[in-house]
């Protein structure tokens, strides 16, 4: 049954619905997502039915009208009675549908707007042009902060509170399969929450126009079962493994002004924190997979891959670039 509906969705969306990473008509990964999915389907169905009814009514009206015109040819002008009842019946019958939709809307709003339980974890997400900064603050020791980028890792089965703000312009935090979107506005903190039911990956996307590369400001939500999440957290908490390679030296000289690698001298704050860079699934805010080839490409032609990105084209010889890429790969 569910499968049949998915197929129908796929057919309807011309192959663009169930399979799409950002679609919210199917593949929900949370309770909120289910509620949103149901109301999206329900309202869409009502919209289609209403449109079809009106289409039939218009067709019938034209038919009746033409027949009357044929029966009484010439340029007869007359005021047939009975027209007002269309308005009374039409509006009268629309009202209960409208009221039902409004009530459904408010019930669903209530369910989605607030988490059912106290959040088990708070994550701070800050929007930047055009990437995401994600911080985990240890509640016991607020100074202990884990900073990562473009990958939001959450445990399954507990509500996660997300504090949203922006470092520059307005962005919008949106993980369609997990919950509703929320703006990230400089100067204020908007709060939203997520709760993933199943472990897995969910794509997130900036939904508010934020300038040049708004299109390519995506991220990945990785939901992990509790033990896996604890392991991830422990690994993230550790500083970067030190090495004494040429790649690290080059990184310190050429990249450290903007990027931080915790445990080394690199402490730049303009770009993403790269402490455990190699463990992340994507680079350039969801644009490329985090593979050696993609890292090479990103460094070699930054501005061609993501025109307008605030990371400048860093001039590196081939050998130097390979060294830096190797160093980045070591940041597990």
């Amino acid at each position, binding site marked *: 049954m569910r499968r049949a509906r998915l197929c129908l969705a796929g057919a309807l*969306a*011309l*192959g*663009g*619905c169930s399979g799409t*990473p*950002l*679609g*919210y008509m199917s593949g929900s990964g949370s309770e909120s997502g289910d*509620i*949103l999915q149901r109301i*999206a389907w329900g*309202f*869409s169905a009502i*919209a289609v039915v209403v449109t079809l009814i*009106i*289409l039939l009514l*218009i067709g019938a*009206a*034209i038919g009746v*009208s033409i027949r009357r*015109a044929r029966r009484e040819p*010439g*340029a*007869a*002008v007359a*005021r047939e009675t009975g*027209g*007002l009842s*269309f*308005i009374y019946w039409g*509006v009268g019958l*629309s009202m209960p549908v*409208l009221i039902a939709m*409004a009530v459904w*809307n408010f019930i*669903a*709003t209530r369910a*989605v*707007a607030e988490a059912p339980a106290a959040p088990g974890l708070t994550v701070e997400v800050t929007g930047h042009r055009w990437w995401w900064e994600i911080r985990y603050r240890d509640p016991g020791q607020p100074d202990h902060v884990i900073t990562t980028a473009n990958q939001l890792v959450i445990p399954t089965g507990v509500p996660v509170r997300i504090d949203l703000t922006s470092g*520059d312009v*307005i962005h*919008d935090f*949106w993980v*369609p399969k997990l919950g*509703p*979107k929320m*703006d990230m*506005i*400089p100067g204020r903190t*908007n*709060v939203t929450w997520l709760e993933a039911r199943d472990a897995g990956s969910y794509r997130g*996307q*900036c939904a*508010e*126009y934020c*300038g*040049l590369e*708004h299109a390519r400001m995506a991220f990945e939500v990785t939901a992990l079962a509790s033990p896996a999440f604890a392991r991830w957290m422990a690994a993230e908490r550790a500083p970067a493994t030190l090495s004494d390679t040429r790649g690290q030296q080059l990184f310190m000289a050429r990249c450290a002004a903007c990027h931080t690698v915790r445990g080394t001298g690199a402490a730049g704050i303009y770009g993403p924190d790269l402490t455990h860079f190699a463990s992340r699934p994507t680079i350039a805010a969801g644009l490329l997979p985090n593979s050696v080839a993609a890292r090479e490409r990103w460094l070699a032609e930054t501005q061609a891959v993501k025109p*307008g990105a605030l990371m400048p084209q860093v001039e590196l010889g081939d050998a130097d670039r390979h060294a830096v890429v190797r160093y980045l790969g070591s940041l597990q």
Partner: protein
Amino acid sequence: MSTSFDEAALASGDGSSRPVDPSPPLSPNPPDIAQRLEVAWGESPGLKGWFGSVDHKVIGIRYLFTAFLFLVVGGCEALVMRIQLARPDATVLTPEQYNQLFSMHGVTMIFLYALPILSGFSNFLWPLMLGSRDMAFPRLNALSYWLFLAAGIFLYLSFPFGAAPDGGWFAYVPNTASEFSPGLNIDVYCLGLIFLGISTTVGSANFVVTLLRMRAPGMSINRLPIIVWGTLTASVANLFAVPAVSLACLFLWFDRNLGTHFFEVSGGGQPLLWQHLFWIFGHPWVYAIVLPAMGMVSDALPVHCRRPLVGYTLVAMATVATMVVGFGVWLHHMFATGVPTLALSFFSAASFVIAIPSAVSVFAWIATIWTGRARITVPFLFFTSVILLFVIGGVSGVMTASLVLDWQLTDTYFIVAHLHYVLIGINLFAVVGAVYHWFPKMSGRMMDERLGRWVFGLMFIGFNLAFLPMHWLGLAGMPRRVWTYGADMGFSTTNMIVTIGAFLFAFGLLLFFINIWRGARAGRVAGPNPWDGPTLEWAIASPPPVYNFAVIPLVASRHPLWEDRLGDTDERSLFAEGFLLDQGKETLAVTPLDGEPDVILKMPGDSWLPFALSISLMPLFVGLLMHSVALAAIGALAALIILILWFAPHPATVQDEAVRVYG
């Protein structure tokens, strides 16, 4: 009485030299009086007549022409964007080019096409429908047009310099603050909208006063055509709404150029203030650009259904009610901004409520067809399609009215689909239908019906092919305002279909313009009332004489030309006798509600002043843009001098004048 409508001849297009309506106009135009009025009302020859014309018909047609020109420009921008979006990861455009294009597409369509095109119709039609000789303030009317043109040119001059607005038509701060948008782009936007706002404001004021005073005796408010209700509602709304956006733009310009902090966080400002000010304007504006168009459907569809509109009073009330509620829903553009849910819920509820007056219009139109005798003309096809497209845009609107669902829908292509169904569906389809309907009145010639059917077919199919799949793109999660998308996102096929639809639609529009051009050159002669319509504009010649009515008619009902056949009332509107007003350029003013004759108005003739004032504002705004005090001062000084001339007292006017009555 013209009852000689010849459907077969009409459908066959040209060929016959016989006018569609061969009878003389119902409103008499005796040669001796016509000659006298021609002298009083005629324009000066040469350049002064061209630049100085204050004739509402000339201004109306100029509005239409210019707005269609902007439609073509905005449409071409859309087509370029559709080429870029047809395939994933395309690089036809750079992100900056794409952002300028989508911003200018929005600004152009919403500000330079959608309202001006309706102002054009209303300008042309109001005095003709109301039985007057001109608008209340003819020079203000000309000023409104010239300012619109100047503001449009001002906005577009930035394009060659690569400095076109690139912050979207909504220009959300702080993306548009100087820190993140240091170029001139956003200054062009701010100043351009303030510039255009002057045009909208004076135009709206003119409509409101015209409605109150410039009507034929007996044209009481319960007899107004619905387009008059629509434009009146829109104009009143504009007077309240436009100041919000002009103020917001001024604040933003201050923030960018004078270092104020209205919107800047570091100085204690609020980025959300911009959004509130913008949407307090923006949402009523949406209704301002559809209500007059709905009015055109309400007036013209019944003509092709051979009966009066069903539920006139309900439709008129629904028009006003839509706008009243429309001022209380602006927050539904801000559902995802983190405003408390309880506050948003009220706006969500109000947005549901707005569906009710819309439903009234829809069912009134369907009932009009059902209980009428439809003539399947091109205007009929367009007006009927408006009903369907309006319903699709309406039900998707109800979906977005839902707070919780909008948290998913907003900022996706679903909204793009919704707003185009509303704006193209209600505005453009109604406008094209209205051109077919009123073109004979404007030009004296018919547009070809056969070509018109092709236009309709292509536009209807192209439009739906382009915009129906966008709903699915939105539901599949495609965000708006993206210059490209990845191949792995699953949007590719649908986007290709959308692009094909867009080009089909554009081709339909191209045929439409060809249809106009051919109609103007060689269309069949129309005669005064080719569609056998009921309202006053059909009682005079096509095209109308410069003074509209030689004898001011006396109106007795809502359908002066159908009274005999409807038999609603024993009273008859009088055309063959009435006020003459031939001692100079004068027309009649009536009392606001009942339309009782009140005073004779002396109307101004051709004038350079409106054109000159618009020209003088150009250096003022360019000076402000370029930070050139000298240039701005020259413009301001020139504007001041022109305004002094404008308001200079006239030589003594006649205070008492014997009223001459014809017939």
